[in-house]
């Protein structure tokens, strides 16, 4: 009976290790905000843990600075399989406004395979909750690739003469 209860209680209960890979702390504060009683991500079993070895999810904020790359790789190896990587904020998704800076690698996905991206600068707590809901399968994602948008009565193309 206890085993059944544990199975029910810990099913899809994600333990999260939160790491800052060069962020400005805006996303970090929103992550803390999500754990407050008003947003209460803990009702989905989300729990911040102090060691990557206890974690199921690696939560990354910030454009990856060159200095943090080896630490991030070691961190990823320290998280036991199966693991999820979630990138929070525009910086972690694609580098943000620092995507081409000399000391920035540009997004978590240049270093690690990322499973879910939550863009925003910073993403509002509801957006992070939506990311959690998508990761847990409670909601579907709302954005889709649209493809090239063209006018229907487009004239034939004339190449640029150089």
């Amino acid at each position, binding site marked *: 009976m206890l085993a059944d209860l544990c199975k029910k209680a810990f099913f899809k209960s994600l333990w999260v290790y939160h790491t800052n890979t060069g962020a400005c702390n805006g996303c970090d504060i929103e992550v803390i905000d999500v754990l407050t*009683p*008003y*947003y*209460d991500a803990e*009702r989905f079993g989300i729990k911040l843990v102090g060691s990557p070895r206890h974690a199921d999810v690696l939560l990354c904020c910030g454009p990856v600075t060159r200095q943090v790359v080896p630490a991030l790789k070691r961190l990823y190896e320290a998280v036991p399989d199966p693991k999820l990587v979630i990138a929070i904020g*525009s910086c972690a*998704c*694609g*580098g*943000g*406004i620092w*995507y*081409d800076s000399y000391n920035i690698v540009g997004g978590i*996905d240049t270093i690690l395979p990322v*499973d*879910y*991206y*939550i*863009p*925003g*600068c910073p*993403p*509002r707590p*509801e*957006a992070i*909750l*939506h*990311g*959690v*809901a*998508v990761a847990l399968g*409670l*909601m579907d*994602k*709302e*954005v*889709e*690739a*649209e*493809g*090239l*948008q*063209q*006018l229907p009565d*487009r*004239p034939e*193309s*004339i*190449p*640029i*003469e150089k």
Partner: protein
Amino acid sequence: MILSKLKEALICIMAGRATLPYPFKPHDPAADFRGYPEVDVDKCIGCGACAAVCPARLIKIEDKDQTTRHITRLLERCVFCGRCADVCPEDAITMTGQFQLTSDQVRQDLVHECDIFMATCKRCGHCYEPATPLDRIMSPGFRHDQIDRGGDRCRHTHVRADQAEAEAVGTADGEDS
């Protein structure tokens, strides 16, 4: 002792539920919240003002040919500052309240690509934005092989032509003196 506990329990019962029921009920952000920037491609004139002010430099403008301007927006880098919507002269960009942008392949899902039909500069052959609304009515459909249609030139060529004329005048004066 017991009274204080009862008082605490009473306060807890009276307080009700504080947690936002968000993922199970839809949540509307404030009216002035800046979310996903939506582009009305029919309104866009391809002037590139949004690309000039974008702090993340995520709007790429390239001319495919003489009449087509290809605009790519890599919105995974967007910081939702709304400056593109502020400067757009045609109000083609609106900041919607859409904040649910979670995706598993953000570099495909949050890319917005469009082709804009532009006027063609008579001299340099690149597309440009006509100066006045009247010119804009006149110029779409203008081609490099329809020279009689109007004397449209982009600002770029104007400057060079003026310089060339000034130089020509200067040398002519020099020869005269």
